[in-house]
């Protein structure tokens, strides 16, 4: 079963790059494909259609703890820019490109989105926990 991790964020905005740090730790994992992006745009909808499952990983200042769960596909918020949210991406992919798999959202709690490189302690802890949780989730996927 194929799985794509979409890591979203800007590594030049400190903790915003935490998803890229998570992706880096899966770089040698043959069970997953990786896609690192600054923001999720509609083209991702075309890409995820080729996979059985997709996990969107992103930093979240409002998350109280690591939060993993299905993408809420009813939460379409009608973007006013060229970027789209994971629910919109999944909806587009199902409607236009035939995506029929599972979609997961992994939100990592972070503290600092200021300009610069490097992760805060909280973001590092979030990343370590996310790698562990994602690893377990991927392990359960049918082969």
């Amino acid at each position: 079963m194929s799985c794509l991790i979409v890591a979203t964020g800007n590594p030049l905005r400190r903790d915003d790059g935490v998803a890229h740090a998570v992706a880096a730790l899966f770089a040698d994992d043959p069970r997953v494909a990786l896609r690192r992006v600054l923001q999720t745009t509609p083209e991702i909808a075309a890409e995820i259609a080729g996979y059985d499952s997709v996990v969107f990983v992103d930093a979240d200042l409002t998350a109280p703890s690591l939060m993993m769960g299905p993408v809420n596909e009813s939460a379409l918020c009608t973007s006013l820019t060229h970027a789209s949210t994971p629910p919109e991406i999944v909806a587009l992919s199902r409607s236009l490109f035939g995506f029929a798999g599972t979609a997961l959202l992994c939100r990592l709690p972070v503290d600092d989105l200021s300009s610069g490189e490097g992760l805060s302690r909280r973001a590092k802890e979030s990343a370590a926990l996310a790698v562990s949780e994602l690893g377990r989730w991927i392990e359960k996927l049918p082969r």
Partner: protein
Amino acid sequence: MSRTIVIQPVSRIEGHAKISIQLDEGGQVESAKFHVTEFRGFEKFCEGRPFQEMPGLMSRVCGICPVSHVLASSKAGDMLLGVEIPPAAGKQRRLVNYAQILQSHALSFFYLSSPDLMLGMDAPAANRNLMGLMETDRDFLRRGIRLRQFGQRVIELTGGKRIHPGWSGPGGVHTRFTAEHRAEILPWIPEAIESITIAIERLKRVLDSFRREIEHMGNFPSLFLATVSPEGGLEYYEGLIRMVDASGDVVAEGLDPRQFFTYLGEASEAYSFMKAPFYLPLGYPGGCYRVGPLARLNVARFAGTPMADRELVEFKQRGKAGVVCESFHYHLARLIEMLHSAERIRELLEDAGLYDENIQAKASLNRREGVGSCEAPRGTLFHRYQVDKDGLMTKADLLIATAQNHQAMNLAVEQTARGFLAPLSGNDTPDSGILNRIEAAIRCYDPCLSCSTHALGQLPLVIEVVSAGGEVLRRIARAESCPA
């Protein structure tokens, strides 16, 4: 009592802006302004950096058109080195530029403007977006997404990254283009051309339902400026500057883009962080000119590829003497440019010279000033650098495409407000479809405000506290102008 209607943020554009519409005592539109409310600092913070770093730094000006900044910066670097780059490097740069035109225009047309064009200006705001298109026009939207994906993939394969590719620099490019790249790109082109052709036909079919918008959303005479080949054809990477007026008369021809600062000036307005360039011989604001897809098609005599040439001939018939003044037709011009870009990408892939292994000219610093230019998706882009004896940047001047449309966007906003906004009284709220038309006038230009507000220094910020009777109670002014 006079009133000001504010639309903030302006939606479905790249960046942050607001529009203010001043009504008079009778509720009629008195004036309207497009305010760019963000600012950045690229011209300043690159001072002191080695010029070789500039393409990488400049690519960060924009996430939509980073390739344009990399190319203009690389060309300025070529000039500082005093070299002619190897032909294969030039072909790679052209290839990536066409891919960028294609992906950026796909974003503008399909993601940002198609909700207006295909669902209607008066469609409910909640539906006027990609999700609304998904419900009503799946194949059309799918093709649009695939087009942008195609352009992005060409950039990624050639430049290493979709966003901020740093593969080009002073003297050439850093990586070879290979047959494996070609094998992935080439099969995609028939689908791309088919999708663009379908979009062109779709747009032409709906134009009749936008007659009033075409007439009143930024339809005015102006100059038009673009790069052309020595023969006068469409050219995006290297050529000469040509200007025509609304009557089709050539105002200037054969201008050297490396001397842009001798014929283009930059004015500042208190209400916006974006500067207002103008054609120096006609002064400000009389020297208002437009750039971008509409300007390029107005200025060029021919496209140089078969399918785009056929469309260009038809396009020019929409205007007088081959010059189209209606801002609404930026959309059609954009699609014709996408068609031309796809045709050019195919030509380049079939050019054996693209695959040559000589891609870098080596030299040390030979000049103290370098200028690079190219046609970015939104218009002509100029970078001018000055360095010290060690090659460290002492000054950077970026003249950005979106800023060159500043005056035109203001005119378009004001004309649209006058044309569609009925007199308002009391606390009447304008109809959302009308306000959308005012935003749509801006969207015709596809402004990229991240690009256009690169200047850091004293901000042209003036805050006026005005009484209901029009008396200025307090004026807070930090500066009247930005440094160039």
